[in-house]
């Protein structure tokens, strides 16, 4: 009797295991563990890496930006500059949205204008030059720019094309799936903000259906949790493999480390505009009558006190490379004229005294937790090093959602930031981080230090309107020279892209660090 019951139970149990196993023979799900959390599914709300990587799964753009920052046809099949300020794009025929409606020029016009006119202005640095978008015929659009814009193609590659029906939709309409309708490789299934996004294969995708039938993006900003999910085989591929986990992954039989170079440049920004910095006080805590960070000697002393080699080596565990400017050698705009500042705490102390702070001062450093590789720990280490030259440092780290608004609007006196230089040239970081803040022009949106250097603005304006590559190159280099010889930002390092994955998948990391399911391949 009991034996029979047990037998039946065993058969039933086997059945439940066998069915999903058989199903997965035809179905090929993929789970990606993202290291950051998107703030919304609305693809035009905020141009941050997690948002753009997430939206990329559901939506396409006119141009596909490859992992190496080059342009490929996507929803547009060809394009040309008609004159200095007009670009014409031919659209792909026969593309359908996930809901079955046809894609045409109206959708493009609505999307580009929506991205430009959104109150959040998240895409301002990409759309600031677009004065008008018109549909010439259902499969041709014309973009008119204010000034000659050499980066227009790159900008356009970042703007996802939504259905024109959704042009007035709110952020909530995207998050609850009502407007989460694109032309992309996957269609929306469900979205739990802060937790995960599930999508399924779009079988009629114009570039050919994805290998993966169902894709789940899990948002796991916690290093330990993300690593644990990979080690326990719950997840196929994780972003930003924690440095401390590399050994575990390397020694495991079915996991691999995927390593590549990223374009993300980490820096320290500071208040260089206010006469009194909110978080800088005299060493004894009394207020200072002037802002020490406005003095270039103080900024240089700060950079001299930071042992960047030690940070890359010890804290990032070699998952980064020491940086002196926006882009590494070989990229457009890398300048040989940027003076390299070496680690020298004694000289830093002397320079600080020369600038009028022999006793140092007190400073609060702000940074995000879990957004960038080892962000909180790097900032604490910087605090240690500052303290050694007499700058009493306090370190405050905030969750990214709380931090992101505050650092860009200039609430902090000294802060940690990073910028993915996805265009592979220097106007892009200059526009966002260094150019004088101007909401109308869309410049300086992430210029949290209030930097305003007329010389840089002038060179930037010139570089941004020069279409000729040979003429442009020295201007791009000038931007690096000016920014880093004035030390408007203290250069820290470039992050490496390190992913952990099962050996059953293969992936080539992108410079922008996005992990896109469509580009993940089954291992041969």
């Amino acid at each position, binding site marked *: 009797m009991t034996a029979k019951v047990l037998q039946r139970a065993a058969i039933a149990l086997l059945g439940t295991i066998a069915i999903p196993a058989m199903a997965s023979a035809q179905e090929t799900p993929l789970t990606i563990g993202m290291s950051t959390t998107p703030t919304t599914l609305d693809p035009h709300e905020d141009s941050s890496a997690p948002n753009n990587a997430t939206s990329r799964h559901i939506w396409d753009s006119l141009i596909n930006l490859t992992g190496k920052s080059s342009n490929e046809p996507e929803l547009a099949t060809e394009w040309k500059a008609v004159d200095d300020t007009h670009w014409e794009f031919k659209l792909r025929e026969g593309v359908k949205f996930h809901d079955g409606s046809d894609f045409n020029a109206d959708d493009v016009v609505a999307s580009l204008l929506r991205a430009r006119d959104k109150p959040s202005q998240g895409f301002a640095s990409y759309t600031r030059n677009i004065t008008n978008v018109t549909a010439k015929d259902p499969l041709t659009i014309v973009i008119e720019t204010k000034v000659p814009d050499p980066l227009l193609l790159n900008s356009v590659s970042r703007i996802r094309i939504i259905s024109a029906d959704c042009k007035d939709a709110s952020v909530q309409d995207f998050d609850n799936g009502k407007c989460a309708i694109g032309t992309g490789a996957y269609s929306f299934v469900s979205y739990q903000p802060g937790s995960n996004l599930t999508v399924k294969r779009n079988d009629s995708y114009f570039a050919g259906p994805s290998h993966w039938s169902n894709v789940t993006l899990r948002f796991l900003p916690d290093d330990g949790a993300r690593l644990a999910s990979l080690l326990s085989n719950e997840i196929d591929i994780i972003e930003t493999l924690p440095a401390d986990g590399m050994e*575990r992954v390397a020694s495991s039989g079915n996991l691999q480390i995927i390593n590549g170079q990223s374009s993300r440049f980490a820096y320290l920004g500071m208040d260089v505009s206010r006469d009194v910095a909110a978080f800088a006080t005299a060493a004894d805590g009394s207020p200072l009558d002037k802002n020490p960070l406005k003095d270039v000697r103080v900024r240089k002393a700060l950079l001299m006190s930071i042992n960047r080699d030690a940070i890359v080596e010890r804290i990032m565990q070699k998952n980064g490379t020491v940086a002196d400017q926006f882009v590494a050698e070989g990229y457009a705009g890398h300048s040989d004229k940027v003076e390299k500042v070496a680690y020298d705490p004694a000289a830093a102390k002397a320079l600080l005294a020369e600038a009028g702070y022999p006793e140092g001062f007190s400073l609060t450093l702000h940074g995000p937790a879990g957004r960038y590789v080892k962000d909180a*720990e790097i900032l604490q280490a910087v605090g240690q090093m500052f303290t050694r030259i007499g700058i009493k440092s306090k370190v405050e780290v905030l969750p990214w959602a709380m931090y992101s608004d505050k650092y860009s609007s200039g609430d902090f006196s000294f802060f940690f930031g990073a910028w993915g230089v996805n265009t592979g040239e220097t106007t892009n970081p200059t526009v966002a981080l260094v150019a004088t803040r101007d909401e109308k022009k869309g410049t300086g949106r992430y210029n949290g230090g209030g930097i305003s250097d007329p010389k840089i603005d002038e060179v930037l304006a010139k570089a941004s309107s020069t279409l000729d590559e040979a003429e442009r190159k020295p201007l791009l280099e000038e931007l690096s020279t000016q920014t880093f010889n004035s030390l408007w930002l203290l250069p820290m390092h470039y992050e490496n892209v390190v992913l952990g994955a099962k050996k059953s998948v293969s992936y080539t990391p992108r410079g922008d660090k996005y992990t896109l399911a469509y580009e993940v391949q089954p291992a041969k």
Partner: protein
Amino acid sequence: MSESNVQDQTVPAATPEPGRLTKGVSEFFKSPAAVIGFGTLIVICGLAVFAPWISPQNPYDLMQLDIMDGRLAPGSESMTGMVYYLGTDSQGRDILSGMLYGLRTSLMVGVLSAFAAAIIGTTAGLFAAYMGRRTETVIMRLVDLQLSFPTILMALMMLAILGKGVINVVIALIIAEWATYARTVRSTALVEREKEYVEAARMLRLPGWRILFKHLLPNCLAPVIVIATMQVARAIGLEATLSFLGLGASVTEPSLGMLISTGYQYLLTGLYWISFFPGIALLVTIVSINLVGDRLRDVLNPRNAS
């Protein structure tokens, strides 16, 4: 246990009214568990109070930390010859020193918030019981509203409004915890209010505040003491949770919860000591407070006394 029961019955008969306090104290120490808990608690408090003098390093002083000493295993020696008995975290912070200082923060948060909440809650409960009518309704509905939120959610909301920082954690915990006291004190006070001595005091036309604080309050204190003790442990646990979530103490001045949180990401990589030792310290602290609290409840419970 049976032995103490016999004594329970004999003692009141032999001495009609011995000092309630001395009786309570001797009663308290009859439980070996309570003695162990109490002893441990004294040691922990001692360690916390004297941390600046006994810890090998000041973990809050960035000058004394060196990232070159980061992630060293327990027993390693630093470049300056100092021994890290319990290892270091990623910043080169001595875990032993970090724990001693962390205990200070944790205990301070626990004691401050529990006692401040006790004062506020007790006063509110007494008023509610004594005044009755509308005052009672308003206070008690507020209490109901408050208790319908999970404590951790309440504390999280408060921190979202107040911002980070140890003092704000204390405030958040007070706001999250006062209602428990108010409800208990009110129910006790309701019973006491009907007793003859209160009636007598009223007959004598004693002022209201005097009846409240001189007559009602002392007779409602027993449950408050018990709850307060337990709440200290709860508050320490909550503070650790909040710090673990990144909303409590500052990263450069870690509490126990913060240390556990920073070590958590290394747990899978074999660097167990960053989380493990602070975790043990937290556990021992909370257990010993709870042992003391449990025993206090037994001793002060009027039903057990007779």
